[in-house]
C-alpha cells in the first residue's frame, strides 16, 4: 500500500459534520471547494463555525481552481512509525491556494510525484484527488509542471 513519497492513509472516513461535509462531497467530484464568509468574504479552510474576521456564522461554498503555491514545507526523512519506512522521504507542505486570501485557507498536504530534494518555497502546485474509500477522497498536491522522470 505504501509508496515512496506518499504518506499513507490513516483514516478512511472524513469524520465530517454539517460544516465540513460539503468539502468532502466536492472532493468526491474532483473539485476543491472552500468556505466563504457571506458577510466579509473571508475564505476558511478547514471550514469553521465562525468567521475569524467578523464572527459571522453563515458561509457559501465556492469552487477553487485547485492550484497554489508552496508556502513552506519539510522533507520527512525519519519514519516515526514502522509503516512509514517505505513512505520516507516524503514532502509535507503548507500550500497557499489560488482564489483565497492565503492565511486562513491554507492547505496542509503531501506533495507527491516530486523529487523531494528539488522542492522549493514558491513552487507552483496543483491538487490531485486520491480516492481512499467510498466515503473519502483527499486532495494531495503535485507539481504544476510535472517532473518528466517522476510523472505517471
Amino acid at each position, binding site marked *: 500500500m505504501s509508496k515512496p513519497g506518499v504518506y499513507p492513509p*490513516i483514516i478512511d472516513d472524513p469524520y465530517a459534520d454539517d460544516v465540513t461535509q460539503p468539502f468532502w462531497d466536492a472532493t468526491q467530484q474532483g473539485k476543491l471547494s472552500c468556505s466563504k464568509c457571506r458577510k466579509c468574504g473571508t475564505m476558511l479552510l478547514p471550514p469553521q463555525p465562525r468567521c475569524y474576521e467578523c464572527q459571522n456564522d453563515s458561509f457559501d461554498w465556492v469552487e477553487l481552481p485547485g492550484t497554489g503555491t508552496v508556502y*513552506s514545507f519539510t522533507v520527512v526523512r525519519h519514519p*516515526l512509525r514502522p509503516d512509514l519506512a517505505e513512505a520516507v522521504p516524503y514532502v509535507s507542505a503548507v500550500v497557499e491556494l489560488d482564489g483565497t486570501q492565503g*492565511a486562513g485557507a491554507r492547505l496542509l498536504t503531501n506533495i507527491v510525484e516530486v523529487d523531494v530534494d528539488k522542492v522549493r518555497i514558491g513552487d507552483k502546485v496543483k491538487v490531485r484527488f486520491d480516492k481512499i474509500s467510498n466515503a473519502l477522497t483527499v486532495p494531495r498536491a503535485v507539481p504544476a509542471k510535472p517532473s518528466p522522470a517522476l510523472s505517471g
Partner: protein
Amino acid sequence: MKDKTAVVGVGSTPYWKRGGSLPENEMSMACTAILAALDDAGLTVKDLDGFAIYSSSCDPAQVASVLGVPEVRFAATLTSGGGGSAGCIGLASAAIVSGQAEVVVSLMTLQQVGRRLGRTQTTGGPPVVPASPYGSGGVPPTYAFGAFSGLISPGHSFSILTQRHMHLYGTTREHLCEIAINQRANAIKRPTSIRKDPLTKDEYFNAQMLSDPLCLFDYTMESDGAIAVITTTAERARNCKQTPAYVMASANGGMGRWGPAIFNYFQQPDEYFASSGHRPVAKRMYEMAGIGPDDVDVALIYDHFSPMVLMQLEDYGFCGIGEGGPFIADGNIRLGGKIPVNTHGGHLSEAYIIGMTHVREAVEQVRGTAINQVPDCEIALVTGGPASLPVSGTLLRR
C-alpha cells in the same frame, strides 16, 4: 506585580534519559522536587499553600494529600503545553499579589515511560482523546483536513516554520549548528547534563536529517525528571535562606490567530508565521518590567528545537526580525558574548524537563551560583514555548 514576589526555592530530581527514572513514578518525583525546593528556601510543607502550574503538570489534589499540605488556597494551571513554563511563575505571582496564597509551588514532572511526548500525533489513527473532558468526544470534524499531510510530530511542524524563516531571511543550517554547539559547550561543564561529549561542526553536519532542515542535533533529547520552584512575597523572600530572585515581570498569551499554530493549524498571518509567536508577550513583559532587551544579562530560551532559539532572540528584541542568523554567527550567544544563551545547556544538551531547567538556571544566575555564571548577572530572561498559545516570558532580577 513588578518586584512584589520572588522565587526563593528550587528543587529537582536527577535528570535521566527517557525511561531512566524507573522505579520512581510521577508522584514520587513530584514530592522529591517540591520538598527539595521548600528546603532550599528554608520553608516546609506547613508553609505551602498554592499550586501554580502549566500544562496540567501535576494533580495538586493528589500531591497536596500525599504531602499533607495543611490548606491549599490556590490551584491553577496555564493551559496548553510547554509554553507556560516561564509563565507559571507569573501565575504564582498573580495569586500572591492578589492575596490568595503566599507560598506557591510551580513544577513539572516528566516521565516518558509509557508515552513519548514527541510522538503525541503519531499513533497512526485519529485522536481518541476528546479536546475537553466535557465535550461529547469523538474525532474533531477538522481532523481529516490535516490527516493526509504527513505532519505528525512537533519536529515536522517546527521544520515548516524554520524553512519559511530560511526562505525569507537567508537563515542557514550553519546558524542552527552554532546554537547546538554553544549549548553543548555549556552543558559539558554541568554534572546534571545528559549530553556531555563535545559536539563538533562535522558531527552536526554528518548527523541524520530527521525532517529538513532539521537534523538530530536540532531536536531536543527525551528525558525524565521533576523540577519545582517556590514563589512567595518579596517581604517573606528576604527572610528565606537564599538570595531572592525577584519577579520583575511575567506575561503569557499570544496573538489569537497564533492559536494552536504548529499543531496542524499553520493559518497564522504572514507577518508572524516565521516567528516564535512571542512578540506580543515580549512587549508586555518588558513594559511591566520597565526595561528593554539591552538590560538583560542572560537569556534562558526554550529550545525544544534549535531554530526556535533564533526566532525568540528576534522576538525578544536582542536583534532585528530576520537578523537572528548573523547575530548568532557573530558569537553573541556564547558565554562572554553580548547575550549569553542557555548557559545550562538547555533542552538540546542538558535535559528536557519542559522548560523548568531554564527557570532553575535563571534563578541560579540571579543568585550568582550558576556553574556557567555570567559575571555580575542582575537580570535573567526565561521563556516558555514556542507552542500553542499561551507562550510566556518572565524576567527575574537580583
